């Protein structure tokens, strides 16, 4: 059985699993990291959004063999650690606005929001409605209005 080594939430992990198993299932079914959720398996609902080296991506659509040993994967569980706090400012903003309803999509929404704020800043601007319109994460409870507010709030504290 092939062995794969990479970093998850600051810790080095090694898993024995076939090369073509998608990273989402390695995280969830092998490593027991359940924050990234399954909603489609084909990279359209974005419920599994995590970060790879600080950029948002969807592990449902990445083979574990394509993750390099020095790649750093961050799931919602590891997001506070990236700022050395109990909660990331975006999570605080989510609480402040009481965004979540069922909560199923929210780990992915938060991970997407953090990356989107960084992306806008890299392009020399603060996040705005046009950027938020580009976020593809589905919320079936329909919390979009509060997500929009929370992202703008959270960005200010990032």
């Amino acid at each position, binding site marked *: 059985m092939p062995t794969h080594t990479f970093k998850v939430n600051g810790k080095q992990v090694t898993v024995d*699993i*076939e090369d*073509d*198993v*998608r990273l*989402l*299932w390695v995280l*969830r*079914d*092998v490593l*027991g990291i*359940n*924050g*990234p*959720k*399954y*909603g*489609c*398996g*084909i*990279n*359209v*609902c974005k419920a599994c959004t995590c970060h790879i080296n600080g950029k*948002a*991506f969807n*592990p*449902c*659509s*990445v083979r574990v063999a*394509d993750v390099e040993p020095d790649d750093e994967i961050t*799931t*919602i569980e590891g997001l*506070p650690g990236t700022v050395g706090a109990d909660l990331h400012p975006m*999570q605080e903003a989510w*609480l402040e606005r*009481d965004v*979540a*309803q*069922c*909560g*199923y*999509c*929210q780990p992915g929404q938060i991970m997407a929001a953090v990356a989107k704020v960084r992306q806008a800043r890299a392009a020399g601007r603060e996040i705005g409605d046009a950027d*938020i*319109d*580009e*976020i*593809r*994460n*589905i*919320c*079936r*409870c*329909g*919390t*979009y*209005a*509060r*997500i*929009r507010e929370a992202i703008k709030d959270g960005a200010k504290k990032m």
Partner: protein
Amino acid sequence: MEQRRSPRSGPPGPDTPPESPGPDLGRRRFLGYLVAAPTLAAAAHLGGSLAAPREAGAVIPSLPEVQEVFDLNDLLTLATKPTANLIAVVLNPDGTASFDMPRAESGQGVTTMAAMLIAEELELPLDKINVTLADARPELMFNQFTAGSNTTISMYNPIRVAAAIAREQLLKAAAIQLGDTVTALTPHLGFIEAADGRRISYGDLAELAAAQKTEQVEVRIKERSEFKIIGTPQNRIDALDAVTGRKKFAMDLDVPDALPTMICRPPTIKGTPASVANLDAVRRLPGVTDVVPIATGVAVRAKTFGQCIDAVNALDVAWNPGTVDGESDDTVLARLKKAEIPLTVPALKPLTGVVEGEFTFYWRNNAALEPNTAVADVRADRAEIWAPLQSPILCQEQVAAQLGLPLNAVTVHVVQAGGAFGRRMFNDVVLEATEASKKMGKPVKLMWHRTDECRQGRMHPMCTSRIRATYSGGNVLTFEQRHTSVATDYTQGFGEIITALGAKIPPLGQGNELGFSVPVFHLTVNVPYNFGAVTQLLNEVYTYDTFPTSSVRNLVNPDVRTAQELIVDQLAAKMGKDPYTFRRQFVDDDRVRAVLDKAAEVGEWGREMEPGTAQAITVHKEYKGATATLVEIDCRPETVNRKIRNAVTGPRVTKAVMAVDTGLPINPRGLEAQMQGGIMDGIAQALTSSLHLRDGTLLEGSWDDYFYTRHWNAPLETKIIVMPPTTGEPGGAGEFGVPSAMAAVACAYARATGTIPTSFPINHGTLSFKPKATVPPLPPSPTNGLEFAY
């Protein structure tokens, strides 16, 4: 069955709620129980006693199935014990209170609502109250069924009574400890305090206050004027778990050896497996532990869900046809049109004007983001189930029947759901998991693929609504509506097996239609305007189990009301009135008029709009409450034709303002969230989201072709106004926001484009995607995820 109502119109009332009747000591006193337990436990009856006559009794036949399922007498004996339907608030030695709630929490906020009611009466901080979901409790009979936005309405008094009894008992125990009288003591934030400053914590009293024997007691609960928590905005009690990824859904449970399991499903609706050519080869695939045919397909168990997906797609299965292989949207529509009950008022009458319309509403998926998931551990003599369930009692009964086990050998744990929207009233996934676990002899964690949800899941029944209204001399004389629908499956009954079987009574489906569909239609629909002679009739086609149907965040009203409001706008135009002032004149209820006025005011009704954009305003009355929604829509070509990869853009609702009156809002913040969600559903249902049926197959297969509202479709401005309390009694919320929102979007589209839409969603006529293959059943898992990293 005609529905005629007398008008209840009056002048617009002031904003202040009607005064509650004067001090009536009898009114706020309730009976409850102190329950013998190691720590203080206080309880109240949930719902009426089973001993009371039930209407459903008339349709309970001597069906052999009932006795085969379990010993009905035992159940009835259990259910008629005076303490059978108690719900209890328990105080713990650590000073927290616990409540095991016999309802589903699917994001609608009922656990937070329950915690608030307990906090109010128990005088305990909200964060000291743990609300969990109760296992299936068959003795509750009809009272463990989450549907129809009923949870708050039914739980409001019982929870408060139980908490109040606990508070009184704490006071008595503290009086002994502090050597004081009860009346001199005050409960405050988890302590009983004496006037001299001495105090004792609830935790220290938990055991001292415990009852030695179960006894009935009387208690006074708070008047509205005494509320400190109820009616104040509160955040969800599970918010921290949600934003940290700690909130556990069924697929996150770590049940030993319950490995991922998925089903290879047929290419057409309700097809069944005939034979499998390569069972052994698939069993040898990486990670795979078991492959067994079950009633609905072929179950695959593996180390990871990813390996399940690959194995499902590797299976070579011959399929039997399903129930609707010859049916498509067109054939169903033809059948609906043929079954429409005729309108009775002539279309041409001297001196009267006529407005008519006929509208078609296509299939919609429940589409909770968390797919159907159930963990099942079936042993020879018992079974244990974990799943998000709206009807856990029925689930327990069905599993017992399927396995031939006594009811008490089946334990059903209710897990919080990642959305429900009606889907989790049906226990399909549990019955599949049960069958797979039994056949494999191992625990399973069965999950539906998203594509299974789209193609074999339940859907809102396709329907038509035809309306004819006549007017003369400034009045609307008649308003007729004929709603014709594919049969809705009511075999979940009221969440337990007796009424569930009632829905199946032969002649096939008649129990379903006459026992459920027609009564539910008449109990939920109305025309909230003084329009003279009003009739609304329902007719259903096909039998209840031809198509897999269910409600989808409300059943008939989003469509019924959208059809009506489109006609109302036309009536207003024909009668030369502004849509808002016309509605204001004709609404038949002061509370509806008040929300209408508020939405018009906050939404700036009548402001100047660019060509190609428009406002619309609509109302709705249901669930003991009223809503009004004002939307602004942008239908200009540059907006409609904006391009987003793998997405439907189309017209954009740029602003949505909803005023909502639920009588007594328990948690205005939670209510606001529910209404916002209702708006997003209304937008989806009016503009973008439907299923296409072609030759027994639903063409949609995931979120990239089933177009639920996305960030780029959501309004840039959304405002909810929660009206001050009006009735003193809470109403429903979960499904309540959808009808006026959907209607407003449809009306705004008509006003912006000058074309009245006649089928919904408006984009249904154009298939904007290439349907995914049906064999193999699941889309391949992509490998290019890193290309899209940002």
